């Protein structure tokens, strides 16, 4: 039996703007992601020193999850092992891969750093979100040329159907240079939350993803 689920919250970070639900909660005028990330960190008065060590993919996913989970009560309503984090993007960790490659490209100037190398895996952003919010349930990182709502829906639904999770953070976290985009959804079983945005369906994910 397919478990009926609800999209209970959405956070969109795109075009130097952050949209939570249907409200624009931040707009930023600047050329690069680094400036945007620092601005967000200050604006939302986040106090988490590990943030500054993260790579750009980590920062982007962390910020989106931070705002998504925010006052949702997710971490008090569910045990850590009851929540899943299933993310997707197009460039994997290529943004940080290029940084690591630069550090080894010259024989006379060879300085690979473990602090950079650890982020040459896309799923490390899942680890960062899990550490911050004490989430210990199912995780996975999927790579897809474009946002693929059907795959996310099938994956996450299967986790709900099998009783692996009671709630899930899922969506898109993509960064390639200064092009960045994150659309994260909080999914819960229908009836467990009063703040539902839409039924959890591929078409609803696509519609929200397409919204400006």
């Amino acid at each position, binding site marked *: 039996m397919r478990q009926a689920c609800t999209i209970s919250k959405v956070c969109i970070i795109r075009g130097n703007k952050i949209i939570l639900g249907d409200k624009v909660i931040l707009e930023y005028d600047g050329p690069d992601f680094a400036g945007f990330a620092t601005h967000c960190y200050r604006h939302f008065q986040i106090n988490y020193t590990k943030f500054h060590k993260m790579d750009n993919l980590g920062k982007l996913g962390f910020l989106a999850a931070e705002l998504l989970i925010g006052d949702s009560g997710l971490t008090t309503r569910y045990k850590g092992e009851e929540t899943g984090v299933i993310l997707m993007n197009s460039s994997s960790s290529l943004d940080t891969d290029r940084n690591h490659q630069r550090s080894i*490209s010259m024989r006379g100037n060879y300085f690979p750093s473990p602090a950079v*190398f*650890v982020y*040459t895996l896309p799923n490390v952003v899942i*680890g960062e979100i899990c550490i911050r919010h004490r989430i*210990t349930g199912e*995780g*996975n990182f999927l790579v897809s040329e474009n946002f693929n709502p059907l795959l996310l829906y099938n994956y996450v639904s299967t986790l709900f*159907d099998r009783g692996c999770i009671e709630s899930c953070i899922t969506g898109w976290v993509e960064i390639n240079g200064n092009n960045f985009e994150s659309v994260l959804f909080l999914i819960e079983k229908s009836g467990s939350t009063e703040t539902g945005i839409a039924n959890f369906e591929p078409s609803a994910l696509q519609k929200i993803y397409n919204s400006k």
Partner: protein
Amino acid sequence: MRNVYLVADNIITPLGFTTGENARSMIDGKTGIRLITDETLAPEPFYASIISNRVLDERFSDENDPSKFTRFEKLAILSLRNALSGIDDYLKNQRTLFILSTTKGNIDLLRENPVDDRLFLWNTARLLKDYFGLVNKPVIVSDACISGVQAIITAVRFIESGLYDHAIINGTDIISEFVLSGFNSFKSLSNGPCRPFDKTRDGLSLGEGSGTIILTSDSTLCGNNKIVVGPGFSTNDANHISGPSRTGEGLFLAISRVLKHSVRPVDYISAHGTATLYNDEMESVAITRAGLQDVPVNSFKGYWGHTLGAAGIIESVMGVHSLKNNILFRTAGFKEPGVTNPINVIDKVLGKDIGSCLKIASGFGGCNAAALFYRI
């Protein structure tokens, strides 16, 4: 829920280009790990399990022009081709899921061209899909060192729930300057061939290879020796992005979920066993906490090193080979127990009647996975 069966498999490492070739080399006591001197890969000589370009191109050139494909593509194509042999026509339809499991894909191309299209994993997966004439858009799992086990778990769930009837899963990763320099900067490479669970272990050996598993809901595709795959689960430690949890909490949780949902006891464990101090210690804690400390356990890393995104596939294939043939391989490199919690590390080749194999894995980002394979 319907059963998911393993129909066919293949692995490619320096020990062989088929599952059988690898098993024979292992029984003969061979290892693929050797001292490599190659300045295009690392400034100093290093131990790793590397497939010779010459041998790879020889194998590949029977049907293709090797110069038209990357190293990664050649390995993946050879593995897929071998596993698909005889059943490929049956699988070229929309009921078949194709999953590629990899951490870094064609990462060796990054040095020459940082914007090479082939760096995108979905381009690599598409090339493989088109090469074999498969129908559906590929699914790509890139979940660090648990990618392979995750890919299997994903396929099992999608088949169990009726979304697909069959799955072709390939896991591939290659040795590159990129990955070697990174693990070297972590000081996690062993000074010799790696020694999993041993008292003197001092780090991992990197490896490269490709593995393919074909799954189906159609039991008539299998022979008499049927292997069922599942259940499997993944978890996160929520502890540290590059170090395993000291309590083994995440892996313990993944194993516990398998035990809770499994209809079979665990007869044998194929561990991650990277031979780093912390990984092997953590696994011994998790295995003991799950009450499996007496179950025979081995690590395959001493034969072909840590093959990253391919590891979960390659090692599951050899675990299944053990099940089918009632043979337990010794843990190459292991001599004296070196983990705090005594676990039952296999130190010589054993003939033993086993009905199930638990595959476990852990990786950067704090991820863990466990999946069960059993005979019916």
